[in-house]
């Protein structure tokens, strides 16, 4: 318990480094990752993350130390090499990019594991802890590590701020960027290098296997909340920082646990919440919209049924029993009952002794649905030349979505027809029934 409190209070200077470092590199990886996601290079990012392992091991074999600068250089070289090889395979052979990514990822990662095993078997004292790079261990960061990795992370964030406009254009429209004379190959190189660097600084905290959680997931989550690139990048950075902080705390509080999986948990929860609850794009928002549409369709179908029953009796305020309505319009009985209750609350129908009747507002709305239905049928038969028995189904759904503006346009384009293709009269509002154009034409 004391350790958690210590960590939270940042009283221990070592913990302070770890938290500070994790925040910076979480932020940098997510910010760079935003452009990786938008350029649809997520898989490449994951391949690079796995491919830095042989570089880390190679650097250790050459220098026999775990100095952060040596590891950084080693990781950078093999990360870069993986990009070059992917590019070479895609360009010079018939193998497609996704296969090339798969091949490079597994070959590099396999080589890395092989080297790691070999190092462990030599029993070299200094090697203890190299395997932390597999799943990450934020708490093992020392001041040196934080200075170097944090410095690189800060540099990456600064570069994104500096080249924001260019990266924006490059991610959206490459051809246009080339045509206005931007050095696209150089910018590509810069972004790829930044991806490699983001991976290299991130692996200390997350490890190579789960690096994608810090590179891809925060950006993918951020995309749900905004339609502006600047905000998306900042949000991704914040999500990355959250993941960094959580990882650092858990790593100091429970040193035996690898950090990477915890960071994955945090970013995945953020992602899941985004998918579910983001406004407009989120699953819940979509479900609400869907439900609202269903309700509207049910309500309008009931009103239309009541209106049509009134039409055949030439009396719109007759009381009809639920069974009668159900006989006229097939739907789930429960749906019908709920719909009637809702319409009553909203003032479109009244409940009388053993039955329902339309209010004057209900008559108007039912009339409008019947009108739209029939107008659409006329439109289909006149302009799409559909047979009268083919127009009903389309009208059943279109009647619910036409706006008043479109209704007006439709009616005037058809010159206010009197009847639909089945010879049912089209009920206009009192005002609209006088054909306004006729007057102008005569004048």
């Amino acid at each position: 318990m004391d350790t958690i409190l210590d960590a939270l209070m940042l009283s221990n200077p070592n913990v302070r480094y770890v938290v500070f470092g994790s925040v910076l590199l979480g932020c940098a990886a997510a910010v760079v990752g935003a452009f990786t996601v938008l350029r649809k290079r997520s898989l490449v990012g994951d391949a690079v993350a796995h491919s830095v392992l042989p570089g880390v091991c190679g650097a250790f074999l050459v220098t026999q130390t775990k100095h952060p600068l040596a590891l950084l250089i080693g990781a950078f070289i093999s990360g870069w090499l993986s990009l070059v090889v992917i590019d070479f395979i895609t360009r010079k052979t018939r193998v497609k990019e996704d296969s090339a990514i798969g091949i490079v990822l597994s070959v590099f990662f396999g080589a890395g594991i092989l080297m790691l095993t070999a190092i462990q078997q030599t029993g070299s004292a200094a090697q203890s802890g190299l395997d932390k790079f597999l799943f990450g261990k934020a708490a093992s960061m020392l001041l040196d590590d934080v200075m170097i990795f944090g410095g690189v992370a800060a540099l990456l964030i600064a570069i994104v701020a500096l080249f924001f406009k260019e990266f924006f254009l490059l991610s959206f429209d490459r051809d246009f960027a080339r045509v206005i004379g931007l050095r696209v190959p150089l910018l590509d190189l810069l972004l790829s290098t930044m991806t490699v660097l983001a991976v290299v600084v991130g692996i200390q905290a997350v490890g190579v296997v789960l690096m994608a959680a810090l590179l891809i997931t925060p950006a993918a989550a951020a995309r749900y909340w905004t339609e502006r690139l600047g905000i998306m990048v900042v949000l991704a950075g914040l999500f990355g920082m959250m993941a960094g902080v959580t990882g650092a705390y858990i790593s100091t509080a429970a040193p035996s646990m690898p950090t990477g999986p915890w960071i994955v948990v945090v970013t995945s929860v953020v992602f899941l919440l985004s998918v579910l609850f983001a406004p407009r794009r989120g699953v819940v928002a979509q479900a609400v919209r869907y439900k609202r549409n269903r309700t509207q369709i049910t309500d309008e179908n009931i009103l239309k049924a009541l209106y049509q029953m009134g039409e055949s009796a030439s009396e719109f305020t007759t009381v009809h029993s639920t069974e009668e309505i159900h006989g006229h319009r097939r739907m789930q009985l429960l749906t019908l009952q709920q719909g009637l209750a809702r319409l009553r609350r909203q003032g479109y129908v009244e409940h009388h002794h053993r039955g329902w009747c339309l209010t004057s507002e209900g008559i108007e709305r039912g009339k409008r649905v019947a009108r739209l239905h029939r107008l659409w049928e006329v439109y289909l038969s006149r302009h799409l030349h559909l047979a009268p028995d083919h127009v009903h189904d389309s009208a059943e759904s279109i009647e619910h979505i036409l706006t008043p503006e479109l209704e007006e346009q439709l009616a005037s384009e058809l010159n206010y027809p009197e009847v639909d293709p089945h010879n049912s009269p089209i009920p206009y509002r009192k005002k609209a029934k006088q054909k306004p154009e006729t007057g102008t034409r005569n004048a």
Partner: protein
Amino acid sequence: MIIHVENPALEIHNLTVSYHRKPVLWDIDLTVPQGTLAGIIGPNGAGKSTLIKSVMGLLPADSGYAQMFGEPLDRVRRRVSYVPQRESVDWDFPASALDVALMGRYARLGLFRRPRAADREMAMDCLKKVGMDGFAARQISQLSGGQQQRVFLARALAQDADLYLMDEPFAGIDAATEAAVIQLLTEMKQAGKTVIVVHHDLQSAADYFDWIVLLNMRLVASGPTDQIFTQELLERAYGGRLNVLSQVGELLQKQQFPARERKG
């Protein structure tokens, strides 16, 4: 019939372009005069888009070159604007219509500089010219196809160029947008700009353009509309591929043979 002019806006000299070693354009040689509204016309697969992409340096040429105002593209980039096909980008991108129009100012801003108030004003003006000022803050995926096309046009206008190359600006847009766009292009021509448009609809071509380039893997004709729009030339452009030419192209691809021998 190929009519050349002095002092052209665009000169294409002996241009051959291949996709995966299969030549899709053979020895194109033409000039387009300044201050015209020109259409590049031809059937599907004629290489119309390939031609302007190659002119803009987006596709390498096997042979030949293009010049604008008598200079290579690199020296006159500021005076040349390119409107890619609408489908060439992913519109589900976190950007607003104004963001896209502002991209037309990037070349003038140079590296590191942020768009200034004056650039925003200019971009808004361009959105207004295409009737999209009411949608400036709208996310681009929520625009209709015609509106997206207009945003692309606004971006081109914001470049304030002298020569505009547009790839199918009328594809998939409604009649009202098409009329508004052609009105705008005509005004640009009257202001002394040169506008070259890849166009697929033969019906409207004669009305829209005063210069026509007929293309079908090779140049069929290039000249003023009234001389080019003849039954005979149109039949030559649309009357099917040249059989031997197509077969030679496929043979080059199959044998991985270069379309031109290396120089030197």
